[in-house]
């Protein structure tokens, strides 16, 4: 065929295929590999950290690039790299735990509501909507403040307000799959109720649940960092990204790296998990 001109008769475009259909796959895989490396780093943070994160071991307030302290030291001479590595470990696994808890609790409630329908559905969803309509962050703060400040209570506080979102989404998906013709066809073909739920409905919900969860990790990273910044985390000497920024705020205009580096670590975590969520969505969409 001869070379054809592009026509531009329409000013607006329909939704673009996300990112770009071809570049998407390779980029997505690369992002997921990076996330895998991050998880390994977090897992072996204790081994990778060059120093004890809570012991003063060097000169005070060394700038990044100093010998033996690539990210410098803080005001009492602790190694910032070591503290950041441990902080990343805490932050990353805490976020995964929260998301997993949301997936499990929300998943159970959502599947139960969607499958049983009727008054079970009505009751469970009333309960879910109630939690969804409450100001989650504030309630989480109040819970941690009442239970006492430590990491475990922070996780409890967030987990309590985090599941309703998952319950809503999963219940909706279950309902929509349950209404599809293939479920009716399975009923007519004589499949039992349990079989229909676990073979003809739940496998269809899994991809959406995974995408929802992976897109959510970044939110949890930011929320945890925010609460930690306010002091709702581990007590003082323990390294934590948000808290390390808050405790060293006064140095911002003199030794900026001391408060800023932990914050940058949060940025990297949240950015990577956002990209990872998009990557998971792209790859799953391709598979279908």
């Amino acid at each position, binding site marked *: 065929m001869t070379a054809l001109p592009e026509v531009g008769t*329409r*000013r*607006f*475009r*329909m*939704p*673009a295929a996300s990112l770009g259909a071809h570049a998407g796959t390779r980029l997505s895989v690369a992002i997921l590999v990076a996330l895998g490396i991050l998880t390994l780093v977090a897992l072996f943070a204790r081994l990778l950290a060059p120093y004890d994160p809570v012991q003063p071991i060097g000169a005070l307030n060394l700038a990044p690039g100093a010998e033996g302290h690539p990210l410098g030291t803080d005001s009492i001479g602790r190694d910032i790299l070591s503290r950041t590595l441990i902080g990343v470990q805490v932050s990353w696994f805490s976020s995964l735990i929260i998301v997993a808890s949301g997936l499990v609790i929300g998943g159970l409630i959502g599947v139960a509501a969607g499958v049983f329908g009727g008054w079970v559905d009505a009751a469970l969803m009333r309960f879910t909507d*109630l939690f969804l*309509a*409450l*100001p*989650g*962050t*504030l*309630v989480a*703060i*109040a*819970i941690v*403040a*009442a*239970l*006492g*400040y430590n990491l475990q209570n922070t996780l409890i506080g967030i987990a309590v307000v985090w599941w309703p979102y998952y319950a809503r989404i999963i219940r909706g998906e279950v309902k929509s799959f349950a209404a599809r013709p293939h479920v009716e066809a399975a009923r007519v073909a004589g499949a039992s109720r349990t079989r229909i739920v676990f073979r003809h409905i739940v496998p269809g919900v899994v991809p959406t649940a995974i995408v929802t969860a992976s897109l959510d990790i*970044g939110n949890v990273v*930011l929320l945890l*960092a*925010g609460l930690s*910044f*306010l*002091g*709702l985390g581990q007590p003082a000497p323990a390294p934590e990204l*948000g808290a390390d*920024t*808050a405790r060293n*705020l006064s140095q*911002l*205009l003199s030794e*900026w790296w001391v*408060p*800023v580096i932990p*914050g*940058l670590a*949060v*940025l990297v975590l*949240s*950015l990577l998990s*956002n990209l990872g969520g998009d990557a998971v969505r792209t790859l799953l969409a391709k598979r279908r």
Partner: protein
Amino acid sequence: MFRFILRRTGSAVVLLLVLSAIIFVLQAVSPGDPVKAYLGANASPEAIAAKREELGLNAPLYAQYLRFIANLLHGDLGQSFRTHRPVLTDLQSFLPATLELVLFSFVVAVLLGVLFAVSGSLRLKGGALFRGPLLLLAAAPPFLLALGGIVLFYAQLGVLPASGRGVDSSSPTGFVVLDSIITGQPDAIGLTFQHLLLPGVVLAIAPAIAIGRILRSSLDVTMSADYVRTAESKGLTPFAVLRRHVVRNSIGPGLSMAGLQLGFMFAGVVVVEQIFSWPGIGNYLAGSIPVSDFPAIAGVTLVLGTVYIVTNAVVDILQVAADPRLAA
């Protein structure tokens, strides 16, 4: 419509009761002793016993809850451990500053969000140069944005202030911008606006992206709708197609997301106020956390939670007013 307002108001009241119940339960399990907040740590056992009786702490739990609710309705939120003043008094002096910051920031968020959506959906030239950095900033924790803003605009460029509101908060209404206008002080308006700018924008970034994304996708869906093709087949100009057929049908999801985000901002304001020493209740909360001042924390949670719940109810009602089909 009237039914819907009634129903939505009813559910907001239920939510407020649930919120108060949660706070009540948490108060009961919290380690702090409200009696000591009134009397100090060195009070005599007799005085403590008398105060316990006075506060109704010896009554059964349900009676205590009823009393708690009654107290709330009278505006009694207890006594702060830290300031030794009634929590309500503290909140009254700090709330206007917070409202001013959040509302300003909300306007910024909506403007940025609309710009984000429209530049993306209409493929405006250079739009990506605006959207890319905004997406990056939205992935950063707000405290990092705040620090970056201070280093750049205060320390390096020296164009914006880094803390406070610039004016004494004890002005007639507590809303300094409003006051400046009432009292006719144009300099004060400029000054307060300068102080609002940095915290306002930092607080606006994340909501702007949330609003922008949802608006973008609903714009995209609407623009590929059959009826838009019909409109184009009538030979209408692109602008007329947008104005008459696209805007109204795509604004709904953006509106409800904006309402949701306005609610979220009342929680996000805590960190921002602390860093910028903004004299609002977020800062008050941030100061109460390290000293475990539970009555103050509970009070802030109740007040900001109420604002959140009421905001969402109002947004829902406004939406139904705009599109009666939603009332079902």
